[in-house]
């Protein structure tokens, strides 16, 4: 299933509303750094607008997988098609990648950090800020536009980094453990925040995490991976993705049972 009339590669979109996302298709993917096999025989499909979680132990190649999908790396085997395009340049044009660390530039204000994508494409500073401003309003960062990253809390920095990724205006979002560096309480708050941000279903999302609960709460579907070389062991559908309040969702017996099943599957995979 290919998604609708997405923007052509030559014209990177500048809008932050890319519509229904684009399908991501991974077939027989293998990747090795020299002799070190990181991923072996990974297949995965994410439909347009679907939120798919990838959960696995450390070192199962999750970050590498996202870099491959993003077009930053070329796989040593298999194929990745984003919106049907298998080329690295095509993937780079369609995927926005949010790395583990926020990577905010310390010399720019929050709003200039968020508007880095339009700015890099040649938009004026004023136009980049105008593009970012409504998102600050919408995502609870109003009033912090002129703050420097050093003045923001960890959760806020992560939100600014997320807005920067959104403003790249790509149909596919690749999120690499976006909240791994946060404390438990902030993390729960940020998961709820992201749930709202993803609720509109405008984008296809691949979310990598080692937190089963986070994945089951945020994603429509969760794929569990084996340790290196990473390959899928099981796939679970989430019962009630992104519903509020989070505390009620994660305490639901069906959710708890599913989490236990996921952990058991991960353990089987690790053996």
């Amino acid at each position, binding site marked *: 299933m290919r998604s609708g009339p997405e923007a052509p590669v030559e014209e*990177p979109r500048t809008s932050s509303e890319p519509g229904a996302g684009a399908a991501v298709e991974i077939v027989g993917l293998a990747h090795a750094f020299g002799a070190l096999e990181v991923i072996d025989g990974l297949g995965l499909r994410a439909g347009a607008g679907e939120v798919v979680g990838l959960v696995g132990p450390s070192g199962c190649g999750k*970050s590498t997988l996202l870099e491959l999908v993003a077009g*930053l790396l070329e796989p040593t085997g298999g194929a990745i098609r984003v919106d049907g395009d298998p080329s690295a340049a095509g993937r780079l044009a369609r995927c926005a*990648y949010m790395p583990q*660390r926020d990577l905010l530039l310390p*010399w720019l204000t929050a709003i200039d950090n968020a508007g880095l994508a339009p700015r*890099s*494409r040649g938009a004026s500073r004023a136009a980049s800020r105008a593009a970012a401003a409504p998102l600050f309003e919408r995502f609870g960062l109003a009033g912090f536009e002129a703050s420097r990253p050093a003045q923001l809390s960890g959760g806020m920095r992560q939100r600014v980094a997320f807005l920067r990724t959104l403003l*790249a205006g790509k149909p596919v979002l690749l999120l690499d453990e976006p909240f791994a560096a946060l404390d438990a309480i902030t993390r729960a708050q940020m998961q709820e925040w992201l749930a709202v941000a993803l609720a509109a279903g405008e984008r296809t999302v691949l979310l990598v995490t080692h937190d089963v609960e986070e994945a089951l709460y945020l994603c429509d579907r969760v794929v569990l991976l084996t340790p290196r070389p990473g390959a899928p062991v099981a796939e679970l559908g989430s019962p009630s993705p992104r519903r509020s309040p989070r505390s009620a969702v994660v305490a639901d017996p069906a959710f708890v049972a599913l989490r236990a099943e996921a952990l058991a599957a991960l353990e089987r995979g690790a053996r």
Partner: protein
Amino acid sequence: MRRWLPPVAVIAAAIGLWELAARWDLIAEALQIQPFLVPAPSDVAEALWRDRELLADNAWVTGQEVVLGFALALVAGIAFAVILHLSNLLRRSFYPLLMASQTVPVIAIAPILVVWLGYGLGPKLVIIALVCFFPITVNTLDGLRSVDPELPRMMRTLDAGRGQVLRRVELPSALPFLFSGAKIAAVVSVIGAVFGEWSGANQGLGHLILVAQGQVLTDRVFAAVFVLSTIAIAMFGLLSLLERRLAWWRPGPDPTRQPR
């Protein structure tokens, strides 16, 4: 106020001891200090006042040489660092030459430069730029190369081309390093100016020092050296001020950075 106290106290103590050694006959005789060899600080101060017009005129000439030579080195150094940063081949090819340029004893080639470029401003600028070029280039290049490797990759996913990565990420990241190099360069630039003027000049503080040495006007020599140091310190101070305004963020690796 308190920040200034220790250096002022050290300088005052050094001047006081020097004054005592040069003035007090007992010590002066024991150490065989002759006034024409070691003028007392008060003699130097007197020469500073007495020769103020002479010193000011020559300081103006040397100051111009230093500022222009430094500016030349700054432009060339940044440009060279960027070029070497963008091309692995050029970096591997030219880095040894860059280091070799710093091993050249400037005082040895200065007279040759005068033959090539004449008696005027030219050879002085080249010599000062030669002295300043190395610290600026090497520090800027280090700055460009020490950028968090994840940043350019993130920029690529935001549709930034090579030029945008350089402009938005790498050059700002390198700015604190550039200032470190420029501050070193500013201080050594006056030494370059003296070498340049020694090789052929009819004005400037270096020229004044040479003439005063011939006339055994040691107090004037020291007074000229004092003015030279003041020029260097003023440039250093100006750069520090600029650095605090332009490169105020803390350089170095991000504390949240984790090994992958």
